[in-house]
């Protein structure tokens, strides 16, 4: 049992990536609120260059765009939201 826990912890910490793009930070930087749109609406934004330009998303790299899109969709108004007291 102890060995199993040690192995699990080791695997966790070995594979944790400490660096990388942060969708939340990108959204904050562009002053975008994920819950202001539904998933379909965010998908629509990322399909239209004009809409991306309007929100400042066009200036991001493709990798950052992908991270931002994933974050916005994960936290969209109709996404599966956490249910926690005081959140």
């Amino acid at each position: 049992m102890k060995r199993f826990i040690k192995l699990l912890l080791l695997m966790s910490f070995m594979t944790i990536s400490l660096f990388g793009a942060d969708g939340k930070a990108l959204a904050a930087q562009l002053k975008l609120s994920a819950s202001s749109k539904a998933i379909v609406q965010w998908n629509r934004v990322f399909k239209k260059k004009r809409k991306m330009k309007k929100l400042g998303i066009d200036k991001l790299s493709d990798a950052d765009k992908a991270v931002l899109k994933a974050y916005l969709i994960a936290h969209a108004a109709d996404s599966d939201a956490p249910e926690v007291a005081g959140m």
Partner: protein
Amino acid sequence: MNKKILLSLATVAFLTTTSSFADNTSDIKELKAQIADLQAYIEDVEDSLGAVETRSYTDKVQLGLGMRVEANNYSTTYADGSSPKNEDIVYRTKLNINMKSKIADNLKFSGRLSTYKNWGDSSHNYMGMTDVDSRQGRTPDDSNALYVERAYLDWYMTGGKIPLILTIGRQPSSDGPSYQIKEGTARKGTYDALAFDGAADGIVLTANLSNVTPGSTALRITYGKPNNGSDYDSDLKDTTALGVFVDKQCEAIKQKHLIQAYYVTAKDLNANPRSFDMNSSSPTYMTVQGDKNLGDFDIYGAMFEIQNVNKFDFFIHYSYSVAKPNGNTYSWGGRNLGLLSSATAVDGASTSNKTGNAVWVGTRYKVDSNYAVGAEYNKGSKNWFSATYAPNDPMNKLAVRGDAIEVYASKTVNKHANIRVGYVDVNYDYTGSGNHLGAPMKISNALGTNAIKEVKNIYLTFNVLF
């Protein structure tokens, strides 16, 4: 908006009129007609949007759906090695109607109505026949109900550097972390599921310390009344619980993760004679014969979970429980039961502390966007006791005084639904798992008491969350 469109069209019209005046005249006429059409169209759109806007203001509560249909194939072994003769597959349906409402910028309502039933299982009588399930929900005398599983208000009392939020009502205290990893959903409860799982009425004060600490931090102080004894017996004190929880997410870890540490103390636990005897082979509710306060109870613990680490999710939980019996006992079935203690004809019930602990670990691997596999293991000691009275898992495997393993595979049906097939094997080392009444007895010494030694379950669930 309309003015801009009109101006643009007029500009286009002006710039493109370089040919003869006669041509221009006919073009302008055509453009005017188009503008008139456009104006009419915009007015129609405005009318439609007005209706949508009116509806958005009058739809005060948003509804969502949660549904699970499950099949469980149990296989039970008693302490004496025997098994029930006939264990049919148990089918169940759980329905959740989830509710959300933003009443004002500083006030939010959340709720959940639910029903959970075994197929073909109800107590309706019809023309001399009993248990006619087809009458449930179809007759005026229907006593079955949709229950209020959650109903709470989040009041954002103060802003500033340390926002304070008061959550009052029937709390989001079930299906907490890391239960959601197996389910493949967002976090669905506040508290560590190893120690707390079930509906609870109470008050929670959350201090959001994220502005004054690195990363994200929430401090919660909780107050609840899990058992209201005074309604039934004026000599009885109500059970009350007070807790402190800290939720932490670190800046350095980019993956979705949660660290939680907690301490909860519960005073004046009642005998609660309606308690379910978890280890009985013929589950019945104990007869009410007068309730008693049996003592106090503390529980400490910590957990860590992390998701999307090279397609893996991991979690580890540890809890430590301390039951403090006061020597009172409740008489049932010829036994005198105290808080994790028992009295004999010669000796009174023990008043020494009974300590227990439990660990729960698990992992889930996303094979691709459609398939995932996972495994969990938990182990509880002789005197392990927690507040997991009402988990989604009817076996209450996390309460086991013994150990349990679970393996499962899930398939995504669409973004709102999945199917999961799994196998759970719960091994009981001691009696009374999940129950605070009576001294746990080694299963090998419990021959003749119908104590369960092992339960295996192969299950299939279809889950929808929309």
